[in-house]
């Protein structure tokens, strides 16, 4: 006989903030109850003005802050300190902690008060953008575990920050770039100021002494600009030549070298035009463009970073009659570990003792708990929900399924082919054409006027600067990403936009992406007066089916239930209004009623049947399932109209997947069910050979596949860990945003092409003028920024995301 447990009556929750209502507060009241007069007042205002929709806002549905009860003892373990803690001045220790749940200025204030609250904490600094808390403490006065418990109590779950090395590299890179841009900017601004004087002099006449003076000053300012910030272009060009490819750096380096050399010669000889203002401005603007590009394309935190948060740092090993906490890395096959309710399973193993339910979302994406009893296999990373288990370890660490999955995620992300940008593809042909034209110009003018031949050829090389070409893509992408962010679509890299702009193959996960991901009451056959009785029992349970019942009928009068017993994997029974009520699976109910249960299958295979019996007679049936999102049909249709090949890839039962697939128009062969994370990865791998692949999922069990796909899109509701792997994160609930994303990507590509078109038009005009000898310094100086300016303005005004044009 399976064990049952007696459930405690539920604690009422405040209707406004969700926190428990204290004992004795308005115990006789009907209607909504509140934890305090503050909440009651706010609720009154909202309700009185008809603003109850406030409670539907997704941000409002956050759970109230509660301490997780975790001990964080592993933070004081020597092996933890060896990895994450370093000594600081004054005998202090220092570390960085990644905090979950940081989102605003008040968080900064709260976290940075730590030194006031905990004696021994020397300083606490929170970098709100990345939710990193830098903490320094005196090990003699306090411990890192105590600090972590304090933060946890405030609602910020603390994790060790594992990216210290990547962090240092990224920081060094950023600083170097900022230095270059600042120096280039300062020098360019000064050169241009002097150039104003020279242009004025060119129009009005200037004494030769000052004329030369200013030219020498310009040379003096431009030389360091070329040698210091400008050096990257020459290094890049040399690298490209050695690798026998031609990318953007080559024409840029040629233009810079030509401009500088010609200007230097002319300065020394005192005659002819100089191009220093153009050269210096070019260096500055191109560096800015490159910086924007780098920031937009920065790969997210190492995927394994946050995914490591899935496996616990320590495990409770059973040693005779005692239990010791041991780092997970130290687990060896054969050890017996105890996993309490609420803990994450630390390693793969077999259940030896105990019976409980596990959340297998990591492996199947399903939130329906699965029963585990002695003899069953459990996997690292899954969460033990109901009762303590004792498990014998079979595989741990890298050998566990989770470990292998993480390695596949990393490998997938590394193998992803970089998208060659449209502009870079042009660069090669551009260089060839420009050099050819320069030769032609030189050859044409040489017999007529040798001096001018050199000048015109150089002018050609300078004016056909690919400045606008190099800026076209980063600018369009940066603006698009900014606008997308404002509509709730967070894009991590510009190359994602270029892939999404052209129709390819799109894989969709089922649970949480096409469906709502929650167990909901979908079918109901029964009398209305039974419902309060069911709810009376279900209020005592935290099972997803209970939540489904409560969500389906929120406004029914509250009835008390007594003697409620829950059986794992079965159902509930109890007494309400003097009647004996049983709610559960057909097998469970069959055991408890005298009436034979008709074995009718649920009308829709996708539903989980629940029977309700009152006073030994079956009176109602309910069907629970994961409903398809309302907008899914539309989105699927629109994507197909754009030319995308859609496939459904799910870890759920094939029958369930078939039902969803047929409802959304997926033919046989275009959907796969019962796909493990490894199987999903294999499928993406196979499809990647045929062209760009986009994977849309809600994360954890899609991680490896998303990393391997050309673009991974994470849907709202996925675990924080999945965001590390995704290229795009849709923060709005539902998949409407998916169609917006694709539409926006298409528009962005058009803007990029238009920008490139502009810059090419300028280059053609400039080349024509240079070749025919019409160019003089003024015209050249105007043309160079003009093309860039056009591209900048066109990008700023482009409407890629958000709102109708």
């Amino acid at each position, binding site marked *: 006989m399976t064990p049952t447990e007696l459930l405690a009556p539920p604690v009422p929750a405040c209707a406004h903030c969700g926190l428990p209502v204290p004992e004795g507060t308005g115990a006789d009241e009907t209607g909504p109850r509140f934890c305090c007069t503050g909440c009651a007042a706010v609720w009154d205002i909202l309700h009185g003005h008809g603003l109850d929709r406030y409670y539907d806002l997704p941000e409002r549905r956050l759970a109230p802050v509660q301490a997780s009860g975790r001990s964080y003892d592993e933070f004081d373990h020597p092996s933890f300190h060896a990895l994450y803690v370093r000594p600081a001045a004054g005998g202090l220790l220092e570390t960085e902690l990644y905090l979950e749940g940081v989102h605003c200025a008040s968080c900064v204030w709260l976290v940075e008060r730590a*030194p006031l609250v905990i004696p021994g904490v020397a300083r606490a600094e929170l970098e*709100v953008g990345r939710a990193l808390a830098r903490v320094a403490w005196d090990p003699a006065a306090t411990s890192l575990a105590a600090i972590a418990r304090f933060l946890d109590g405030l609602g910020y779950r603390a994790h060790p920050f594992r990216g210290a090395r990547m962090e240092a590299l990224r920081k060094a890179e950023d600083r170097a770039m900022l230095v270059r841009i*600042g*120096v280039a900017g300062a020098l360019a601004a000064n050169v241009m100021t*002097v150039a104003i004087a020279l242009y004025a002099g060119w129009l009005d006449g200037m004494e030769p002494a000052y004329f030369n*003076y200013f030219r020498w000053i310009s040379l003096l300012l431009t030389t360091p600009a070329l040698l210091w910030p400008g050096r990257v272009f020459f290094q890049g060009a040399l690298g490209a030549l050695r690798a026998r490819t031609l990318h953007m750096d080559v024409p840029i380096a040629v233009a810079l070298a030509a401009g500088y050399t010609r200007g230097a010669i002319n300065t020394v000889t005192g005659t002819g035009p100089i191009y220093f203002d153009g050269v210096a401005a070019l260096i500055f603007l191109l560096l800015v463009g490159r910086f924007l590009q780098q920031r937009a394309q920065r790969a997210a935190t190492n995927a394994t970073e946050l995914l490591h948060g899935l496996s616990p740092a320590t495990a409770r090993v059973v040693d005779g009659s005692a239990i010791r906490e041991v780092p997970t890395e130290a687990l060896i096959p054969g050890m017996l570990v105890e996993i309490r309710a609420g803990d994450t399973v630390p390693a793969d193993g077999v259940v030896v003792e105990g019976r409980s339910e596990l959340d297998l979302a990591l492996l199947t994406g399903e939130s329906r708990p699965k029963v585990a009893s002695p003899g069953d296999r459990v996997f690292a990373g899954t969460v033990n929900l109901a009762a303590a288990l004792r498990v014998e370890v079979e595989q741990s660490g890298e050998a566990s399924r989770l470990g292998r999955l993480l390695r596949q995620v990393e490998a997938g992300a590394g193998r992803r082919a970089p998208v060659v940008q449209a502009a870079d593809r042009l660069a090669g042909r551009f260089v060839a054409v420009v050099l050819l034209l320069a030769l032609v110009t030189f050859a044409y003018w040489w017999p007529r006027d040798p001096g001018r031949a050199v000048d015109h050829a150089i002018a050609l090389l300078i004016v056909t600067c690919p400045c606008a070409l190099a800026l076209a893509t980063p600018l369009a992408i940066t603006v698009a990403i900014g606008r997308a962010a404002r509509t709730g679509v967070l894009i991590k890299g510009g190359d994602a936009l270029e892939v999404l702009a052209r129709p390819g193959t799109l894989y969709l996960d089922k649970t949480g992406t096409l469906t709502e991901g929650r167990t909901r009451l979908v079918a109901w056959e029964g009398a209305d007066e039974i419902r309060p009785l069911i709810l009376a029992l279900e209020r005592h349970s935290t099972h997803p089916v209970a939540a489904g019942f409560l969500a389906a009928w929120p406004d029914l009068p509250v009835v008390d239930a007594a003697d409620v017993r829950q059986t794992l994997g079965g159902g509930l029974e109890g007494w309400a209004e003097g009647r004996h009520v049983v709610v559960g699976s057909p097998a469970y109910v069959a055991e408890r009623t005298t009436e034979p249960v008709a074995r009718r299958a649920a009308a829709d295979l996708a539903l989980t049947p629940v029977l309700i019996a009152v006073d030994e007679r079956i009176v109602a049936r309910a069907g629970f399932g994961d409903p398809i999102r309302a907008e899914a049909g539309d989105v699927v249709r629109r994507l197909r109209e754009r030319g995308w090949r859609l496939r459904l890839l799910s870890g759920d039962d094939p029958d369930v997947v078939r039902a969803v697939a047929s409802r959304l128009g997926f033919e046989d062969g275009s959907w796969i069910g019962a796909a493990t994370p490894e199987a999903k990865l294999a499928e993406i791998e196979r499809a990647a050979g045929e062209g760009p692949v986009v994977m849309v999922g809600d994360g954890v069990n899609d991680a490896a596949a998303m990393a391997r796909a050309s673009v991974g899109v994470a849907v709202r509701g996925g675990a924080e860990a999945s965001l590390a792997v995704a290229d795009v994160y849709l923060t709005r609930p539902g998949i409407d945003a998916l169609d917006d994303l694709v539409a926006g990507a298409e528009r962005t590509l058009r803007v990029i092409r238009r920008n490139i078109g502009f810059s090419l038009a300028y280059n053609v005009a400039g080349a024509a003028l240079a070749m025919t000898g019409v160019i003089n310094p003024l015209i050249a100086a105007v043309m160079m920024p003009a093309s860039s300016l056009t591209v900048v303005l066109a990008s700023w005004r482009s409407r890629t995301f958000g709102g109708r044009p």
Partner: protein
Amino acid sequence: MSVLMIVVPLALVLVAAAIAAYVWSVRRGQFDDLTTPAIRAIQDDEGTTKPED
């Protein structure tokens, strides 16, 4: 106008000083996090040390 012979080199010296100061501040990490200091600036100044009793 010959004052330009003095003023322009002086200006260049100032530019050099400005660049040096900028490079120094970037290398010391003052530009690493531009959002949090903005938040801290508008908080009340009560310091993070316990008041002496």
